[in-house]
Every structure is written in C-alpha cells, then in structure tokens.
C-alpha cells in the first residue's frame, strides 16, 4: 500500500531470544475452569442468587425452629384467641397488620373484641383453634422442605443410577428398564400418590413412599439419554478401548459430564415435589393432624377465605415464594451451566 520511509536504528532489528518472545505471549485474561465459568455466570443472575439466599434463610428458620415448634406445641389450642388477624408491633397504621379485621365493610379491632391482652401479638394471626398461624406456617414450610429434600434424594440416587445403568448397558437391559419407566409414567404421578395414600395411612411417610415410586422417572430418562450420547463420545470410547473399568469410566467421565443435567433436573423436581405435597394435603389425603403443612393450612384457610382472608393468603404467599425461589434457582443454574441459547 504505502511504503513508508522508515528510519529505524539498526538495533531495532536485533533478533529476539526465545524467552523474550514467550514473555510477550503471556495471556492477558486467566483461563477459567468450567466450574469457575459456571460460578461467574450464576453470580450474574441476580434473581437466582436472591432465590438461593431466600431458600437458605427459609431452611435455617424452618429447621432451626424444631426445638420450639414441634408436634407437642402444634396441638396446644387457645380457643380464647381463635381467628385473630395478624398484629405486628409497629404496624399500627396498616389495616390488616394491626390486628384489625374487615367485618361488614368496617375495620374492627379483633384483638380488643376478644379481650386479648394489649401486649399479645400474633404476627401471622391465629387459626380457628387460636393456634398461632406463624408457628404452623414455619412447621408447614419445614414439611415442604423435607419433601423437597426427599425428592431430590430419590432423584439423585434412584433416578441417576437407573438412568446411567439403562443408558450404559443398552440393549435388552435398557429395553426392559425403559418399559418399566413407561408403565410408571403412564399413570399420572399424583394418581400413584393418591393410590399409595389410600392404601397406607396418610402422613409424611406415605408421601415419601409415593415420591420414591414416582418422582425419579424424568431424571432417569434424561440421564439415560445423556449417557447414551456420552457413551459414543470419542473420549469415552478411548477410555473403553484402553480397558478402563466401567465403574472408573462412570466416575471419571460420565458423572462429571452428567453433573449439569443432574443438578438442573434436581432443581426442577423440587418445586414439583413441593406442589405434590401441598396438593395432596389440600384435597385432604396428605399430612394429617397433629402435623400440619402448607397444603393443610391452605385447605383450612380456603374455608374461611371470605371472612378471614389472611388464613389463606399468608400460607399461599409462603408456598408461592418457596416455589418461585426454587424455579428461579433452577433457571439460574440451567443458564449458568448452559450458556447457549440464552441471552
């Protein structure tokens, strides 16, 4: 193009040594491992981070409450405090949070009406037996979280193992295992649970058994599909042709590569398990007294919704926050693991 008349001093043409060359080759940005990349992308998703914090907080409160809120405190009723609306210290000006209740279009101080001592506060109100709703909600949240953890556990054990074996063995074994899944999933999950609960006695154990039977099939299918495709990846073929044992291959190659789909699927199983319990308890065949759960509280609250809306609103909001938090966390993790197709 344009040959510039360049006056260069002869030492400019000194050859560079190998070291000098490599010095200028240093890489500006540090290269990041897969895990670090996932972490960076996850941290960028504010909604997912906040959800994770909310979930941790809820877990701490729910499980930390065990010494104070348990089967014996749950049964204590105080008929004189029945059906009191929420009253929170410092919220005297806000109707609905100051112990006042709307009756025939008028806000009436329910606490004064029932001669409740002035210093008595029920921040989430009370139920028809005068039991503090706050305690019951915390207990119910604990039940939801236990169900969530149990579902996650079965997903990670039965689901993953079933999927890996089915995908890895292939052939006849795979065929039979897939038929079994097909049979299980030709009955809607909740119907399986209902049948189990009809046969067993209602309660947390029966719900856990129902989840154990039906919740892991999606995980097993996904893991199987992924295993099938991983099995034919060149590096797995290489490991196999080098004579590595199946268990070693599974541990070194399969599990790390399956980890993202396992984590994501687990995060999606959890909210559906929480829904599962709430649903069964709501229709009256899930958790039974003296235990309670968010579904039971919703069922009780629904009956009085017209007059005592807080009895349904508060457990409903807690349940929704829990579901939203797990869904958002799941989305955040999915995007963090798999940046393709996302913005």
């Amino acid at each position, binding site marked *: *193009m344009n040959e510039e008349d360049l006056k*260069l001093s002869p030492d*400019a*043409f000194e050859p*560079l040594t190998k070291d000098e*060359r490599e010095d*200028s080759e240093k890489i500006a940005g540090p290269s990041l491992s897969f895990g670090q990349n996932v972490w960076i992308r996850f941290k960028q998703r504010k909604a997912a981070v906040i959800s994770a914090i909310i979930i941790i907080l809820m877990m701490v409160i729910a499980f930390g409450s065990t010494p104070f809120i348990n089967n014996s405190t749950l049964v204590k009723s105080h008929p004189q405090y029945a059906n009191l609306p929420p009253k929170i210290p410092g919220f005297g000006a806000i109707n609905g949070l100051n112990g006042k209740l709307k009756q025939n279009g008028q806000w009436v101080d329910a606490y004064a009406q029932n001669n409740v001592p002035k210093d008595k506060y029920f921040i989430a109100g009370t139920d028809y037996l005068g039991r503090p709703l706050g305690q019951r909600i915390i207990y119910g949240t604990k039940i939801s979280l236990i169900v969530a953890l149990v579902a996650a556990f079965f997903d990670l054990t039965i689901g993953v193992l079933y999927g890996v074996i089915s995908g890895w063995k292939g052939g006849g074994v795979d065929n039979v295992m897939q038929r079994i899944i097909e049979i299980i999933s030709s009955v809607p999950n909740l119907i399986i649970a209902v049948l189990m609960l009809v046969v067993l006695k209602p309660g947390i154990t029966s719900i856990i058994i129902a989840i154990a039977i039906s919740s892991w099939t999606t995980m097993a299918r996904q893991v199987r599909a992924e295993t099938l495709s991983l099995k034919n990846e060149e590096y797995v073929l290489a490991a196999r042709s080098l004579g590595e044992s199946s268990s070693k291959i599974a541990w070194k190659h399969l599990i790390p590569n399956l980890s993202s789909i396992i984590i994501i699927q687990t995060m999606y199983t959890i909210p559906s398990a929480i829904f599962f319990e709430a649903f069964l308890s709501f229709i009256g065949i899930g958790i039974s007294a003296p235990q309670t759960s968010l579904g039971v509280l919703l069922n009780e609250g629904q009956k009085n919704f017209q007059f005592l809306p807080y009895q349904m609103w508060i457990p409903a909001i807690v349940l929704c926050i829990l579901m939203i938090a797990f869904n958002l966390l799941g989305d955040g993790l999915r995007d963090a693991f798999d940046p393709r197709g996302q913005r």
Partner: protein
Amino acid sequence: MPEKILDVKNLQIDFNTYAGEVKAIRDVSFHLNKGETLAIVGESGSGKSVTTRSIIGLLAKNANVVGGEINFHGENLLEASEKDMQNIRGNEISMIFQDPMTSLDPTMKIGQQIAEPLIKHKGASKKEAWAKALEMMKAVGIPDADKRINQYPHQFSGGMRQRIVIAIALICEPEILLADEPTTALDVTVQAEILDLMKDLQKRIKTSIIFITHDLGVVAGMADRVAVMYAGEILEYGTVDDIFFDPQHPYTWGLINSMPTLDSDTLESIPGTPPDLLDPPKGDPFAPRNKYAMKIDIERKPPFFKVSDTHYAATWLLAPGAPKVEPPLEIQRRWKKYALMKKDHELVSEN
C-alpha cells in the same frame, strides 16, 4: 486496471464478552475486483468469518463496528439501513455457510427454500420461482431434480445440501458471493466437486467470490488473489503466485511450510497459539510465535511493504536495513521456482 466491486477500508470490529472487549478485527483493508476470486486464509479465530459477515451486515448481536467503511456501488454498507441491506442480501451479495447440515430449514421443502430469494427480490410468482429453482437444482448438479424439489433437507447428503445452499445463493445471480469455508464440513472428494461447481458457476453468472478458508491447499486451485489473515489483521496479500511462490511474511511461510507435500515425510507446524485479542499485541501479532522475530516486532506494528504491484506484506523483515534471514527450506525452494517463473514471463513478454 481491474474494476473494484467491493472496497473495505480500515475495518475495526469489537465483541463485547463478559470477559471484556475482544478486538476481533483490527484495521483490515482489502478490495475485491470484478469477476475475481479473493481467498482470505487464516486459522480459526483470525477474524475471517467476522469480516465477511460484516459485509452483509449479519454480525452477532454483541459485535460492534468501531470504524472503517465497506464500499459497494458507491455506498458504505456499514451505514446502510436495514431495509437497504435486506435488498442487497441474497440479491446482490449472497453468502454460503460452513455447515450444509444445519444451514437448511429442516421443515421446509427445498424447492421453496431455493425459490425464496427470487420471490423476495425479483417479485417472481411462486410458479416462476419454482421453475427457476428447478433450473438451479439442475445447474448445481442435483440428479432427479424434478422429483427431489419436493423433498426435505434430511433426505439429502452433505454434499447435495451444499449444492442446494449454492443454488439458493446464486438464484438471484448476485454480484458477490461470500463463501465461508463452504467445503470444510465435506468429504475430500465431495470438496473437489463443490469447488469445481463453484468455479463453473462463477464463469456462467460472472460473480465475484470472497472465499474464506483455513486450507491453503484449497486456495491454489480456486483463487486469483489471496489475503492472509492473522489475529484480526491482514498480514500479507497478493496474487496466488505471489503468496505461494514468493511469500514474505513469516506467518505465510509457516502456513505454506505446514502444507503436506509429496516429497517430505514430516509435517511442519507453527508452534504456539494466536494472541489473546482482549489485549492485542501492539507490534506484529505473529511475533511471539515467530522464530525470526526482532526487537521492533514487539514494539511497533509493521506497515505494509510493497513487494510488487500486486503484492504487499506487513513484516519488518522487508524494512530497509533489515537483516536478511534464511526462510525454511521449502520457502527457499519456492523462491527459486518463482525467480524462474518470472524470468520465463519476462522472456515471453519481451518476445
């Protein structure tokens, strides 16, 4: 003097990534003459695809054109409206992508896919467009075209699909065809067929081609001129003979030296990796991998030095006062051959 149909000047493109701004194209200039084939050669990540995509305005969302111009028919394409670009795309400038397996809509009959640009740009009726599509299918060598026009992409092999993609690109008889590694995903035998087809069609419809590849071997039979790209810059450009027989930039030497030849049984490679374009080197980008590198190479970016009227190279080795270095044996052999060729040429022209 051949007519310039496309003139790219000082093009600069950045990409916003979460790691920072990647300076993918750094001051790239080149032009395309009417009727010729210009090959842009470089390894992956050198910016050759980005350059061609910027010509038809199909850059990724996070790409940012920082400066430069792309002149086509007296218009700067970088400033053209989206509407104008739509009228140019597929009509005056077409593009062929690398992977024929994924570049066709899996749920649309191929006849319709081929006919689409004609309906869009030439206002053809569906019937006319399908008739022309059938003609194009025959022209690109698809057997049983009248039957296969109603089939779907998955019913075709990779080579056949690339022929279909070529038919789509050429149905409006564009002035420029941008071919982004059109044969990379294909078998070697199919590669040759596709290249022959492209050359043949180029003659028939008189189009100019920008041919992008990382494979110098493909370039020799295909291109009139070659530009060598590295780390977002053009390092050397010239005619095919200039680049193949009189290469000047050590990177070009490396590329040629790493081509398999019949009489050598070892395959040379260029050690090291391209620089990180988050923080591009201020001197010659190839310097860190260049065993002929000099002090000035890491301090200042070399300008283009003229080798001949058609041949320029950006290396300090061509600067006045630079030491003479010994290129690899293969290059020395080619230089000798080039000197002979030149002599023959001079003799011919004297007579």
